[in-house]
């Protein structure tokens, strides 16, 4: 993985000093809140319901053991002993004191981490497929591109005060595990017939109030042009994106209102002008960054491990965990482990500092010192030998992190909601907890099969409800929490925005409503192999509406 050199170290160190000075000027009154706010946001500092919140970047979701250990240390020393992994490959601490944050950033810098641009109307933490560099279906590792983008976008002088936030995601496989098409810019690394690497470029995707699937603006962009093209897009957006209404300020609205063809003309014209300039990426520089992500020194192992097979026979719980939470690795004899931070009744994505320590230890011992965080609020051990899976499982079991529910209905995504968030209109976590309890039975969950359930506590959609197979959006209706249900959304390569199924449900009703939807699916699926989303796509919303809203009486 990427390691800082002297330049990077000096950069983050001076950035911490800069923020320390900004905090001092805020406390002294030289900076008003109006002027401090954009500065603190650019360092990931929010003021939420109960306290400040610090959002720390895990760039493209990759971190090493000492970084994970540091996150645990920060939770323990400065916070309330836990952290919350988010849907954007970040971690949030919910209770830091403003006066402590420069020290926290200093601690983060000591392990090559930062909170730069995790918030604010700037280019945010660049995300990527959490299985990058490990997945069997990968064309190329997307992380070198994400790292180059991270660097280029860091304190870019022109793009720190954009009309609105700007999110970039990169994938390197035809299977989209990063909801790439729901980003302001989505990039898919591809190979052409000549074997050269390049990118397919999408623009104008996003969730929030007006969900939109990104539109393909370039089927092929040579990798050397990546920065020039992104700079052209950002420049056009900064100049022409709407600033009169924050709900219409994302690039998706500019694309929608201007039309892709017209906007593309402006972007291509600017790109044409700058593409042979200083942003053109030399092959050797791309190669130098890519070298940081070279495959680990894997052992030459058979594809099957007898010990593992025996352990699965001996221990049914372990076998089920392997079945759900372990997927194929590109390297024979290795596997990718998903640690679902979704125990029964737990807050999705929360981990205690003790759990972070355990994860760090496991990454160090069994996964070439590497861990990942996913937008589905789980932690991944990307390179585990098949013969080590049982030991990993045992350690996770002891630490309360062995939920065998990856990809199942209780592997719920949920934003912090009204329990923490100043923007929220309803609670999310308690709804997730109730559903997690309701569907806790593993036999029942496995019978239901693959199902993505996503919950947001307001229209900003941090819980990605639009792309949930079942999506739940909490709103405020005259002081009461009301939950709207969408069905049929999908964040993968067959991107789809869920349809609102009908009137919303109270907090007391929402659990039953989800159960009714699931029961309808179970009754109507063609076979056990037809997943929820397939059944929904085949039948459409009507059977679900009929079940949720039975006609009371004809008028």
């Amino acid at each position, binding site marked *: 993985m990427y390691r800082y050199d002297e330049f990077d170290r000096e950069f983050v160190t001076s950035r911490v000093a800069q923020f320390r000075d900004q905090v001092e000027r805020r406390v002294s009154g030289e900076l008003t809140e109006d002027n401090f706010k954009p500065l603190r946001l650019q360092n990931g500092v929010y003021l939420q319901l*109960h306290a400040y919140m610090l959002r720390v970047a895990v760039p493209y979701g990759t971190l090493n053991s000492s970084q994970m250990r540091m996150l645990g240390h920060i939770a323990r020393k400065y916070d309330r002993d836990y952290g919350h992994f988010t849907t954007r490959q970040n971690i949030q601490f919910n209770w830091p004191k403003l006066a402590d944050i420069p020290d926290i950033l200093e601690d983060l810098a000591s392990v090559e981490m930062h909170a730069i641009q995790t918030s604010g109307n700037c280019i945010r933490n660049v995300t990527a497929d959490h299985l990058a560099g490990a997945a069997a279906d990968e064309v190329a590792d997307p992380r070198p591109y994400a790292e180059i983008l991270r660097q280029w976008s860091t304190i870019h002088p022109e793009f720190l005060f954009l009309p609105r936030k700007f999110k970039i995601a990169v994938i390197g496989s035809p299977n989209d595990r990063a909801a790439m098409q729901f980003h302001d810019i989505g990039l898919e690394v591809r190979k052409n017939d000549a074997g050269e690497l390049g990118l397919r470029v999408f623009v104008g995707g996003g969730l929030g109030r007006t969900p939109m699937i990104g539109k393909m603006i370039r089927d092929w962009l040579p990798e050397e042009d990546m920065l020039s093209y992104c700079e052209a897009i950002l420049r056009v957006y900064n100049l022409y994106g709407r600033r009169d209404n924050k709900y219409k300020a994302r690039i998706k609205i500019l694309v929608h209102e201007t039309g892709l063809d017209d906007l593309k003309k402006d972007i291509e014209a600017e790109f044409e002008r700058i593409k042979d300039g200083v942003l053109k990426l030399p092959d050797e520089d791309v190669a130098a960054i890519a070298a940081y992500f070279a495959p680990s020194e894997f052992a030459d192992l058979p594809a099957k491990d007898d010990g593992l097979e025996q352990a699965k026979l001996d221990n049914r719980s372990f076998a089920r965990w392997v079945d759900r939470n372990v997927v194929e690795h590109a390297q024979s004899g290795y596997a990718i482990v998903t640690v679902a931070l979704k125990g029964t009744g737990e807050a999705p994505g929360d981990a205690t500092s003790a759990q972070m320590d355990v994860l760090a230890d496991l990454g160090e011992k069994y996964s070439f010192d590497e861990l990942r965080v996913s937008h589905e609020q789980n932690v991944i051990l990307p390179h585990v030998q098949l013969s080590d899976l049982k030991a990993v499982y045992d350690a996770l079991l002891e630490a309360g992190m062995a939920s065998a529910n990856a990809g199942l209905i209780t592997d719920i995504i949920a934003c912090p909601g*009204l329990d923490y968030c100043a923007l929220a209109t309803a609670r999310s976590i308690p709804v997730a907890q109730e559903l997690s309890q309701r569907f806790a039975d593993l036999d029942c969950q496995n019978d239901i099969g693959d199902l993505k359930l996503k919950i947001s506590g307001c229209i900003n959609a941090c819980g990605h409800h639009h792309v949930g197979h079942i999506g739940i959006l909490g709103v405020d209706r005259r002081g009461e929490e009301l939950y709207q249900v969408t069905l049929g959304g999908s964040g993968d390569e067959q991107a789809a925005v869920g349809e609102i199924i009908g009137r919303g449900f109270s907090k007391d009703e929402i659990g039953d409503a989800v159960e009714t939807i699931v029961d309808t699916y179970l009754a109507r699926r063609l076979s056990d192999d037809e997943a929820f989303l397939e059944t929904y796509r085949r039948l459409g919303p009507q059977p679900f509406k009929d079940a949720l809203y039975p006609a009371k009486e004809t008028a």
Partner: protein
Amino acid sequence: MSTLKNPIAFTANNLLDGEVVWLGRNGGWVKSIDEARVFGTEEERAMGAAEAAQADADNLVVEPYEIDLNLDEGRIAPAKFRERIRAAGPTMRLDLGKQAELSQPEALVAA
């Protein structure tokens, strides 16, 4: 004196530690809503607003605002659910926030 439809309080977060605070009965800002000053008339409200704005200008608190209250047998509770959560803490973590130190946390959130 014109009486307000609802009694109100003024709330904000401390600048330095972010803690939720209210203008207190005995002056200054307090960390428990039980000690918050209740404003019942337009004249009191104007005084409270001025006091809150001053604290903002003095960099003690951040972005103060007023909240509607319900008074139930003398106990102060915010009218809005959001403000009840601010006064207590996360509803699914009773060990966190102000409720961790209160005697009857459930009463506040359920109010």
